[in-house]
């Protein structure tokens, strides 16, 4: 597990965080530092170990298919950064960009 230098801009894009050039450099250094610390994990022999999926051993937790009470729309939209009528409004979506 090499201490790769992270492509901070690419990762920030995936995470939808706008960063200044200074921030890119700053976080890049800090994250590189952290990665070199976590690199210690490569010392562990985990070849025959299963990844922990869940600490608790529960299985099959589910609920019955019964409809319940919903939130009041007025209360919901009151907390919206921008509501228009009965809807949440967002700036234009550019097609094909996710």
């Amino acid at each position, binding site marked *: 597990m090499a201490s790769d230098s*992270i492509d901070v801009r690419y990762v920030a894009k995936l*995470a939808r965080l706008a960063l200044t050039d200074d921030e890119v450099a700053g976080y890049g250094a800090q994250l590189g530092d952290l990665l070199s610390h*976590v690199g210690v994990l*490569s010392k562990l022999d985990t070849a025959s170990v299963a990844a922990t999926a869940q600490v608790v051993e529960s299985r099959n937790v589910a609920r019955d298919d019964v409809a319940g009470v919903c939130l009041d729309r007025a209360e919901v939209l009151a907390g919206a950064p921008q509501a228009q009528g009965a809807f949440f409004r967002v700036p234009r979506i550019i097609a094909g960009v996710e």
Partner: protein
Amino acid sequence: MVNETAVAIARSVSTRKTSARETIDALYPYVESSDKTIGSYLSLTHELARSLADKVDARVKAGESLPLAGVPIAVKDNMCLRGTVTTCGSKILENWVSPYTGTAVQRLLDAGAIPVGKTNMDEFAMGSSCENSALGITRNPYDIGRVPGGSSGGSAAAVAARQAALSLGSDTGGSIREPAAFCNVVGFKPTYGRVSRYGLIAFASSLDQIGPFSQTVEDAALCYDVMGGFDPMDATSVDRPLETTAGHLRADLRGVRIGIVKEFATSELGSTVDALYKKAYADLEKLGATLVEVELPTAEFGIATYYLIAPAECSANLARFDGVRYGLRVDGSNVQEMYENTRAAGFGPEVKRRILIGTYALSSGYYDAYYVKAQKARTLIARDFAKAFESCDVIASPAASTPAFSFNAKSDPYSMYLMDYYTIPGSLAGLPSLSVPCGSVFPEGGSRAMPMGLQLSSPLFAERSLLGIAHAYERATLHAEKLALPQIASV
């Protein structure tokens, strides 16, 4: 200030020696004046408190039995309480009012507890000093030049400064245990899945747990007994009958085996701290316990493991903060830009760091080497604990390597992460774990004695045993009471 334990207040209100309303009315003026110095609270819930107090008094009068009748509690601001501003210490939720109440909080209210207010915290529970809050500063009541610990700094300080009888914190890698140690109070994190996470704003889903801060172990036990148990709104909450704890507190430790971890040798922590813990272990023996050396060979990988898994989970959990449905919005020329601007303005640096590292650890090409590897290391750590518990009933160690440090002492992120060294491994294994005051030391360059905490951890679902043992130690040593709380100067 609150002079009595939760147990005593509940008894007083239940027998109508005093009323819930009187209790809360007497408390608020103190909270308001002391908080100018301490800064435990981000918001106070006066109206709600008074209205609930009146209801509790009516219920008590009608003969209802309420285990927490009239007990003032502070709630960490990452827990939803309907009608209250719930911020997670972040600008991105600075004005968000929650439309619902989380299960753990609701159970306490149903049992008669009175919410005093919402407490300060490291932003989104990421931090070990409360310095990462974007909305306020909380000071350690024992030395206001020092941090209260984190991320549940406000909740720890509130109980320490007697601004509440009980408070709720959340613990992911140590965020209850470390501030409890720094603030001379009891802080308890139950087994993962024992207390519902519904209504707890998620940081790391497979690690987060809600737990109490209190003056005594008995109070923590009472709070846990009310809060714990399966919740159909949380699929990770365990469907297993709750073993109550408050009626099973021990007077001594005869027959108890205490594991002392070879890898957690306190000789590395300097002579005064070393002496303090050696005394703590000796005190356990005096109560009849046997000390057993145990090994946790993978404990040293705890921080690396944690700082891959927790950020990975949080990078997805925090994706919902995007300016669309609630919270802060900073506009952009299109929606994706709006996301980027909103999140850049709304999140602080530590949060951004963790989102970045978490996104990276999950990303294509790195997922196996980082995230999966860390989850495998986690399995090994849990196995080590299981093996250690074959020869002991409880593991004892420091809760933190130092007492509370000064503000700005740890500017390097990694040095801050090291504060969770002792608490993280237990979190990764999901174990129930607590910190109980075990004395004080003069920190280097410090003029005041600062408290330290003894961490006790037990096997999964062994809360009854854990709290029983902690209670015996606490009653025999009374360390919390021995350290005087300084006068809180009004600013």
